[in-house]
């Protein structure tokens, strides 16, 4: 996983609440057995006018020009601004994979669904929670200014606007540590192999039926 310390990027506004993971990456693309290549199908049903299927040449498909990511000013966006409960629905990690593959490294919203929020951190995507008021203000600013960019400073836990205004955000210290250092969770957990084995031995004593094979 790539480390994340700070970044600056164009902000794309997605003005909808409850954006679900089926919308982020529709199910027909979940048939892939890879982690990459989902970017062209991010928000597929909103982005294209035809029905997307795996294996299509996406560069030849008709675009829905009204969809925000198809507007020239947001083409190179790497920060997504969204409304509340972003990422609700299924646990598919294909959702953050698609966002990352498209080029998004940070998502700002007033709230996120739990599993999606968690999945983002595992893939080097930073979900940032700001208040409804702050998000409202960002939506207004993005609309008002072409090429609107934000600076995201994870170390300092703040967002800096072009006019040098700052918004502080919270982030769990452990998740921050992993993201800043690009650490792999499995490697970290395996430092505690002895604790896991000790727990397991005790559990085997207390609840042996959890360790027996079916009759």
């Amino acid at each position, binding site marked *: 996983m790539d480390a994340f310390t700070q970044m600056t990027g164009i902000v794309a506004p997605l003005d*909808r*609440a*409850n954006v*679900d993971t*089926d*919308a982020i990456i*529709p*199910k*027909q693309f*979940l*048939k*892939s*057995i*890879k*982690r990459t290549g989902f970017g062209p199908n991010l928000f597929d*049903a909103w982005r294209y006018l035809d*029905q*997307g299927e795996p*294996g299509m040449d996406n560069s030849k498909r008709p675009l829905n020009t009204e969809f925000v990511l198809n507007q020239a000013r947001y083409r190179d966006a790497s920060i997504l601004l969204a*409304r*509340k*409960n972003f990422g*609700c*629905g*299924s*646990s*598919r*990690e294909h959702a*953050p994979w698609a966002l990352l593959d498209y080029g998004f490294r940070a998502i700002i919203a007033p*709230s996120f*669904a*739990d*599993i999606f929020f*968690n*999945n983002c951190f*595992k*893939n080097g995507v930073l979900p940032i929670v700001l208040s409804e008021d702050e998000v409202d203000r960002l939506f207004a600013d993005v609309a008002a200014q072409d090429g609107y960019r934000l600076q995201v400073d994870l170390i300092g836990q703040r967002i800096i606007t072009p006019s040098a205004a700052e918004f502080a955000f919270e982030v*769990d*210290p*452990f998740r921050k540590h992993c993201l800043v250092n690009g650490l792999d*969770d*499995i490697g970290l*957990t*395996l430092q*505690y192999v002895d*604790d*896991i084995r000790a*727990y*397991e031995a005790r*559990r085997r004593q*207390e*609840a*042996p*039926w*959890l*360790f*027996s*094979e*079916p*009759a």
Partner: protein
Amino acid sequence: MAARTLYDKLWDAHVVRTDEDGTALLYIDRHLVHEVTSPQAFEGLRLAGRRPWRIDSILATPDHNVPTVDRSLGIEDPISRIQVETLGRNCSEFGITEFDMSDPRQGIVHVVGPEEGATLPGMTVVCGDSHTSTHGAFGALAFGIGTSEVEHVLATQCLIQKKSKNMLVSVDGSVGNGVTAKDIVLAIIGEIGTAGGTGYAIEFGGQAIRELSMEGRMTVCNMTIEAGARAGMVAVDDKTIDYLHGLPYAPSAGQWQQALASWRDLRSDGEAVFDRVLHIDAASIQPQVSWGTSPEMVVAVGSRVPDPQQEADPVRREGMLAALKYMGLKANMPVSEIRPDKVFIGSCTNSRIEDLRAAAAVAKGRKVAEGIKLAMVVPGSGLVKRQAEREGLDRIFIDAGFDWREPGCSMCLAMNADRLEPGERCASTSNRNFEGRQGQGGRTHLVSPAMAAAAAIAGHFVDVRDFD
């Protein structure tokens, strides 16, 4: 020890270690695996030269991509086929038990686990699928995880977790006739909203929940995630224990009494404190129908489609307008005037034997209405299918004009060949009515099995209680 909730007890029993900031390493007892969210996890494991920590904790079955028609033809879509075959290869490489497509026990992972007794009280149960919350019906801590976490559990038997807050949803009193577990949970989501449970583990309690069968409790816990909570659970009682007795993975005779003694404590202490408590009057719950593109957009069948102009909050109003447009509905129209094109009875929410019995009771001796293009019944597993056939339910459905299919997720999310065409409307017993969920441009109305069957017969939504 201070009074604890059921969730507190389950959590405490699985903590391997805790960091100062409260991040815990949680031990996982049961890991259920299906074909969609596991290939990248196995690949990661192989790339790192790791092996699964405890293969006897894992049970795998393909469900999302499998065809529901004649299996002897295999899977026509090559990409689906590769995914199902990849699961098979990964399981045989690592020695993991898999109920493959030809196994009579194959089915939707959340139906298979409980019916095998692979889900037991007091367990932590995970699966790369958000509806893993289903298994909480057994007094287990069960929640969905992403693919990175699937790999993490494979490699370490643990997950890195922070504890959630405690919420109690108490459904007080009894529900009326014709009101099912599905109606209870849809009404709860309608009340608290799709983000109402975010950050919480929800315990469902109260008389109406205790009166539900295990199947009904699974239906309620299944949709916990639709209320934003990763885990939902119900305390252990005699019904839990009776259900499990004699199942293949349940404790052997020699260990049964010891297991029972520990399971009896799996309920919240009388003095336990919840961070949030919600009381719902069971008697007020009516059969529900969803009208929009989020599971919180539900109304009682006897009412009308809501009017966005009555909504004060502008973001919500916009959401309602967009939903009505997508669904092709008019504000204020009676729900009973909505006419589905297709009917789907199935999914991990409502494809167990009790669900099929409820639908069959409505379909018996009747015919699917002319206007319905397709009405299908997809049992949750091979075992459910066989049981239904023993009871003659298949004949009732077939005689009424329903399709009787092979088990799998099917049109719940349309990763296989079963799907809605653009603009088609479906009465569905599944759990999600998101845009395009059942096929691009498809329109989903979430209902109970009895309500779905009644809609198939009448050709429009009807209150199953008035159905004669």
